[in-house]
């Protein structure tokens, strides 16, 4: 239990440092008021914002105010989200809370990551087990090559190639955007390539290791069907490294989605981050990075805990650094 608390505190500290770092580094890129309103804003509007948002206060005061706001769920407002030019000089009219904007994008990213994972997990495990059950066979070689290919390919390039093939040449699927089931197929497959490879590799080596153990010999001697020996006996005991890898890949999916969303114009958090960076929309950048970092840190924490729960031979805190 002490270990759990220690890890949670550690994660909170890391998040706090990240948010502080983003706040301070964000001030290095120029006048925050100008960044918040865009280069098209009038001097009057910029001065008004400076006054209203307290940007003339010392940096430390602003920082404390910012952190205080976050603790109450207030990440600030964006004046530029959704507009290419500033639509009005009346700032309070166009202010949108950035946290709402980010949270609105979360479901699309989760849907994409979930779709990718629901392809990658069964396929990766199936490939890994098949290879492990027939070592040095043609199937084993094919799986090895495919899984290496999956981790060696650049995701966004794979996405572009899939678009060329299935959307442009064959016209079967849309090139991008957000809509029904047909829209999720290509981005999900793109995002799944890497986890399929990683999961297949880990499953293969874990199952091979299990298959060499005495209890497998016993099961075979008792006449248990080979299918059951591999899929029930060996796979079950090989599950710890596989689950760990799936968790690792889940957090990689959340950030990998940045590129895939960009390629397929998928309106998730990743696309929001790219857009807000390219517009230098500071409050939105800060909030979206904070939310994604919190998500990834949480996933990593849960994976760490589940790993320890699954494996009774690792006592909590024993191997922790």
């Amino acid at each position, binding site marked *: 239990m002490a270990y759990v608390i220690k890890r949670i505190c*550690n*994660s909170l*500290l*890391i998040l706090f*440092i*990240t948010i502080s770092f*983003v706040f301070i*580094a*964000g001030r*290095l*890129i120029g006048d925050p008021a100008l960044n918040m309103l865009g280069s098209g804003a009038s001097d009057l509007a910029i001065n008004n914002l400076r006054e209203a948002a307290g940007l003339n206060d010392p940096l430390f005061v602003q920082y404390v105010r910012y952190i205080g706001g976050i603790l109450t769920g207030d990440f600030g407002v964006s004046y530029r989200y959704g507009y290419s030019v500033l639509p009005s000089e009346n700032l309070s009219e166009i202010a949108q809370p950035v946290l709402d904007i980010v949270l609105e994008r979360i479901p699309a990213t989760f849907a994409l990551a979930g779709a990718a994972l629901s392809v990658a997990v069964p396929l990766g495990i199936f490939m890994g087990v098949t290879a492990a059950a027939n*070592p*040095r066979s043609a199937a084993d070689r094919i799986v090895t090559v495919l899984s*290496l*290919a999956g*981790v*060696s*390919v*650049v*995701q*966004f*390039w*794979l996405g*572009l*190639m899939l*678009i*060329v093939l299935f959307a*442009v040449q064959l016209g079967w699927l849309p090139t991008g955007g957000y809509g029904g089931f047909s829209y999720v197929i290509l981005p999900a497959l793109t995002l799944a390539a890497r986890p399929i490879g990683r999961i297949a590799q880990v499953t293969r*080596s874990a199952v*091979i290791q299990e*298959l*060499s153990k005495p209890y497998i010999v016993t099961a075979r001697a008792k006449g248990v069907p080979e299918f059951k020996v591999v899929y029930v006996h060996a796979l079950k005991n090989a599950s710890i490294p596989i689950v760990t890898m799936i968790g690792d890949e889940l*957090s990689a999916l*959340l*950030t*990998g989605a*940045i*590129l895939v969303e*960009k390629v397929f114009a998928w309106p998730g958090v990743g696309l929001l*981050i*790219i857009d807000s*960076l*390219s517009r230098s929309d500071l409050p939105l*950048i800060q909030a979206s*990075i904070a939310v*994604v*970092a919190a998500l*990834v*840190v949480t996933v*990593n*924490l849960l994976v760490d805990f589940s790993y320890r729960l699954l494996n009774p031979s690792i006592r909590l805190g024993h191997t922790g*650094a």
Partner: protein
Amino acid sequence: MSDATTPELDDIKDARDVNITKLDYARAILKDKVTLVAVLFLAALVIFTAGANFLAPHPPTGLNFLDSLLPPLSRGANGEFYLLGTDELGRDMFSRLIYGARVSVSVGVIGALVSGIVGVFTGLTAGYKGGLYEDIVMRLVDGMLSLPSLLVALFVLFVLGGGFVNLILVFSILHWMVFARLSRGLALEARSSTYVKAAKALGATDMRIIFYHILPNVIPPILVLLTLEIATLILSEASLSFLGFGVQPPDPSWGLMIADGREHIRSAWWLVAFPGIAIFLTALSLNLVANWLRAVTDPVQRWRWFAKG
């Protein structure tokens, strides 16, 4: 690479007794055709990267609007041959790929080396010394590893601006932890070994033990990780450059070439396809070589590679 059957104890003993020379490594590589192809590809890549000025058939920035967007294997208006076609400005794709390799490969190699040196130094010292220092280092490692590195890299490059040097800086800051974690584990293991105890008894200083006695013994796994990290960084460079936060034009990098080609993806697939294939083959070769290195430097597995006959 690995196999379900474990070698007999005698075999292991024999393999350890055999004095393995460089020639044996060469022989082992020749035996494994897939790795051989990967090594040859990487060698060709290095040669082309180093000799780009002589080996590229066309200048990478030579504009020639008469020959714009020619498909692969076509001839230009003046009879020049374009192996991989041309881009919208009539620049030869093959030459640009060669010059792009320069940027992409050197970002990967330098980034991995710098983060490797930082990580191995902190990891070995932390594992060997232990105590509060180790605690602080490993907490930092755990914390930084739990952050989404691509996102942090994006933001830092957004603040600092893209470019070659900043990319390497960002990669070093965000990738030393994997080396630190591995080295710390290796140092922990070595700390209780007889040879370290012997060196200590002879009065060797901590630094001497760490870098003169422990380091040479832990090189193989670090080398494997280094190879894998080069592949990872080449992929990351491509991603960041694609998003516009990495290498800046007119420097040709593979990721940037894909980004540029995207506009013409409907009509000129080769602009996007070839840089991606170049990245893919490079990363795949590095992964294959890493797998091979892991197998031949593993004392339990390597008997298979050096078995005579």
